[in-house]
């Protein structure tokens, strides 16, 4: 049983033209239910593209993506996943509570049920007293917690996150990581998480998927063995540093290879 399966998937933009970009080539990835998987790699490695293929916001050029044994398109229609972006993307004109209710409204839930669920989600992200405020009255970290509450409002089994903490300061970021682990533990949600940060990927994940650009592909998958109970002490544990080193070396490998390839072609990187 897998929560998510990506088989032989490629995504090529502007195929057959001078501007052709091989965003992803032959990607294979299987995620088990309840697993937390991070996608990490330099800019242009296709990690966001992969996330959008899973979300069915993009169609793969070849290969297949299935979520809960359904096609990605069907999973999107059934709202089998929730999504959170780098920008919280809350609607200014809706109260916090109404923002959380948005996906439920679109699914046609009735008002009482929606309000009850919004209340429940606000308890989950520990912001119950903010229900009637507007998003612009909250701090960035609070907004992002509301965005997570919105993504989880319909109780999806899969959560897709695209650098959700990228715009937060370091302190808030670490706090949010702890909160995310707690929330996903309580709801036993499967997570695919795109990030630029090595410690973030290691701290959160069961597996870190290292990707490399031109063409975008998966170069290695690193298991993180830090157990299921993680807290602030985890950040000082030996295993934490070992995994960080492993991910760093894997990334460096992709970088060295990348630089070598450019040297041969005689082009400057960027």
């Amino acid at each position: 049983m897998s929560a998510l399966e990506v088989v032989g998937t490629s995504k090529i933009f502007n195929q057959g033209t001078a501007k052709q970009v091989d965003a992803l080539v032959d990607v294979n990835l299987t995620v088990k239910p309840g697993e937390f998987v991070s996608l990490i790699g330099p800019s242009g490695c296709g990690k966001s593209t992969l996330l959008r293929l899973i979300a069915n916001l993009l169609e793969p050029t070849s290969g297949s993506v299935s979520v809960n044994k359904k096609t990605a398109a069907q999973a999107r229609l059934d709202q089998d996943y929730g999504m959170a972006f780098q920008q919280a993307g809350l609607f200014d004109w809706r109260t916090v509570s109404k923002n959380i209710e948005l996906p439920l409204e679109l699914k046609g839930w009735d008002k009482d049920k929606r309000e009850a669920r919004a209340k429940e989600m606000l308890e989950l992200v520990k912001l119950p007293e903010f229900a009637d405020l507007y998003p612009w009255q909250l701090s960035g970290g609070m907004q992002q917690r509301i965005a997570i509450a919105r993504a989880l409002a319909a109780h999806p089994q899969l959560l897709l996150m695209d650098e959700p903490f990228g715009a937060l300061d370091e302190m808030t970021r670490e706090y949010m990581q702890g909160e995310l682990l707690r929330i996903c533990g309580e709801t036993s949600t499967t997570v695919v998480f795109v990030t630029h940060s090595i410690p973030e990927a290691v701290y959160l994940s069961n597996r870190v998927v290292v990707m490399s650009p031109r063409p975008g592909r998966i170069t290695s998958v690193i298991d993180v063995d830090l157990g299921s109970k993680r807290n602030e002490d985890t950040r000082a544990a030996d295993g934490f540093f070992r995994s960080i080193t492993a991910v760093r070396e894997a990334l460096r490998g992709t970088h060295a290879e990348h630089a070598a390839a450019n040297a041969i072609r005689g082009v400057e990187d960027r």
Partner: protein
Amino acid sequence: MLMRRIAYRSSMFVLAIASVIALWEGYKILGPQEGGKLFGVSILPRANSTAMPHVWDMLSRYNRPEVRGSETKIWSVVLSGTLFSLRLSLVGFFLGTTIGVGLAVLMSRFRVVQRGLLPYLVMSQTVPLIALAPLVVSWGGKLEIGSFVWPRWLSASILGTFLAFFPIAVGTLRGLASAPAAAVELMDSYAASWKQTLIKLRFPAAVPFMVPAFKLGASGAVVGVVVAEISTGLKGGIGRLIIEYAREATGDPAKVFTAVFGAAALGITMSGLVALSDVLLMRNRPKETSA
């Protein structure tokens, strides 16, 4: 907070009126009675009371009869003329809003429509209103749909619509397109339909663009209606009163100003109505954008 803003705005309004009066009367004292020439061109307006009646003469004129020996005071004539034109302007504005918003939705839905239509909309606004007015009247007169007979006043409203719909269409179109790409992607991830995205995302996101467009549309409707009244000779409105009274400018110079102020009041009322919707719609938005 809201009350303070209203108090501030109305005191600024009073201050503005007071300074205009001071300027007017000040020029009457200092300016040349028979006008002044600069490099042989008469450029300074005459300060005598035929060209520039005193403010108090204009105001007291409101309480005297419209024509000598008549029972009706001029204020009631001007008031009913203004209300008549207000009704026409409201009809014009309402039609303009419907058409403008409708076109904007169509253009934002279909890129082809936008590319095909927008240049013609821009071009339509270069047609002089005066040239269009008699045409609309004659077309209207020929129109018969069942028992519906085209009333003459509707032609004036249509010309108001003609000026109102354009800024509304353009503003709304920009507003609908202003929804952030991430928000559109979010709605896509919910498998939201085009209509759901329009109602739950695009329209609310467009409000800060639509309100100023409505303000332009409202004043456009007033200008269209008043100009149409003048150029088609439609009776009953403030535009007609202005040309009628202007003919008596030598004998009764204050009279035309009573109608001019009526037209000004009409414009202020229309933009006031839109400003009210601004306050209501934007009350829960971040303050930076509503300033």
